[in-house]
């Protein structure tokens, strides 16, 4: 990868595709403008990047596409502020900036031979979706793959086309749910909060790795369910998303106690998270 002396200088990337996931959540597929970088850019599932809309600034998101899919990367974000609103105004062919990949990653090699249980809610699917596709693209390396995904309403589910694809595949089990009242007449999934649905599903903890990502409230109520099911804290992984600016361990805002999410994370085991002060 081309190394810049200026660590704050982003790579330029072209928006190749724009996909509206929900009315305010958008996926951008990006292609690096530098041909060599396009070939050589590599990252691991779980790493994040700083994405910039020039004139507005930078925002931090995970790389939502799988490292097994070469030639492009994807990010997925909700337009809620100055930068994300500007990113949302970008059209196919427009140029944006990308710095990264940063942070640690899921230790996927340690998951070989294990069953995988993904538990996620709302816009927290993208940080796990990179790993889901990474694993599906290496399908024979894993045991059962189960995905429990919930959102407030049907409309808030992201990657709807991929949810259909996972539902149709026989080698992955998707359990989708919406909060009570969030279901329309056509809804064919479950109704209930993610922790409740997980409790009912009662997946076996045996030889299984749980990968959890969601809003703090979902994590808070999901961990006790996993514990009840017999999951060890070392077998539960999550990815934290504190506010960041530099992504390089310098600007001083993503720390949870003495842990720098940008350098020590964003991927942590439940054991690590439980040892942290409540600052995430």
């Amino acid at each position, binding site marked *: 990868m081309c190394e810049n*002396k200026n*660590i704050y200088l982003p790579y330029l990337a072209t928006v190749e595709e724009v996909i509206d996931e929900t009315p305010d959540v958008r996926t951008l597929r990006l292609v690096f403008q530098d041909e060599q970088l396009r070939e050589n850019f590599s990252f691991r599932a779980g790493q994040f990047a700083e994405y*910039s809309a020039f004139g507005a*600034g930078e925002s931090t998101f995970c790389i939502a596409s799988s490292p097994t899919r070469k030639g492009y990367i994807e990010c997925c974000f909700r337009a809620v502020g100055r930068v994300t609103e500007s990113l949302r105004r970008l059209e196919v062919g427009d*140029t944006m900036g990308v710095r990264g990949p940063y942070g640690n990653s899921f230790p996927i090699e340690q998951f070989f031979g294990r069953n995988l249980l993904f538990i996620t809610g709302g816009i927290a699917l993208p940080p796990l979706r990179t790993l889901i596709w990474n694993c599906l693209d290496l399908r024979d390396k894993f045991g059962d793959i189960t995905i429990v995904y919930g959102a407030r309403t049907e409309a808030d589910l992201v990657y709807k086309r991929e949810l259909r694809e996972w539902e149709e595949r026989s080698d992955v089990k998707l359990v989708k749910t919406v909060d009570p009242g969030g279901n329309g007449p056509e809804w064919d999934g479950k109704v209930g909060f993610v922790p409740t649905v997980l409790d009912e599903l009662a997946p076996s903890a045996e030889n299984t790795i749980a990968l959890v990502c969601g809003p703090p409230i979902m994590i808070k109520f999901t961990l006790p369910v996993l514990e009840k099911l017999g999951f060890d804290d070392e077998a539960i992984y999550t990815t934290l998303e504190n506010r960041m600016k530099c992504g390089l361990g310098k600007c001083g805002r*993503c720390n949870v106690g003495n842990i720098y999410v940008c350098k020590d994370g964003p991927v942590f085991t439940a054991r690590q998270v439980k040892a942290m002060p409540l600052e*995430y």
Partner: protein
Amino acid sequence: MQKQISEANFRLLLDSLLLKGQRVVGPRRSGSTVLYEPLSSASDLVVDELPRRSVKEAFFPVCEDLLEYRKEGQQVQLTDITPDRFPETVLIGVRPCDAAAIPVLDAVFSWDYKDQFFLERRSKTTIIGLACTTSDDACFCTAVGLSPNDPKGADLMLTPLQGGGFVAASQSKKGEAFLDVWKDRFSEPDGTATVPLTQPEPNRLDLKKIKAWLDEHFEDPVWDGIATRCVGCGACAFVCPACHCFDIVDEGSEKTGKRRKFWDACGFSKFTNHASGHNPRDLQPKRYRNRIMHKFKYYNDKFSQTLCTGCGRCIRVCPVGIDIAGVLEEIQEKG
């Protein structure tokens, strides 16, 4: 290596440096205050007053450009700001509490990713420290393990002599090189006594004991007690020689502008605000706790250094009178 320089030769040396076109930065009067700024003559140098802001901005400016962008149609042209352009600088009259913070900052700007904006300036700067012969009631360098003539961070350390002039002790290769280049201005020490150094408040803090308490007391009523009056103005962080939190912001129009790095402060209410609105440090006591924890625990955990040099500036500028040395004493008593 130890040398001596007379008052007259010291002035001549400064003027020679300036005549040569050398950039010399030191404490000088700037409006109504003393700041570390480029000198234009030896007489600009103020040696008896602690500059209002710390020396960190010589390496880490309040605001600096990181890149320029220009949009043309769907394309964007980026202009890199190459750190190579930073000028060679002699930083003179640096107070021990300021100089000592520079190696502390080295740790964060050089671990893992290298911030060349900081490091280039650092490598191109010769730091000439100056021992303190005066102090005020906010100074507490002695309480955090430093002293009025601590040479930490200095390449060359000056101590004032009785009757004028200085003893100059080199602390690094850069300092030795400086003495060598300007050897005609220096003489061998003749045993003249130095001016008695100031002895700031001897409220010796036991940093180990304080850290041990911090290790165990993330949640503690003490934080509410100390920080409810903090107004979150961030002044303490801005005048601090060791605080280094920053923000990255684009300034300009949609078409053209600059990306800049700005000082920021963990005391600001939106500092850790998530896009969702969730804020892990939503209340001022949590933010003040982070300030103390970062300085006296986290930085130590990570880099084995304390992020405070006892300069006392935060005490002098706090609009609600929060006294960090007092806070540390309170914590120490609990430990």
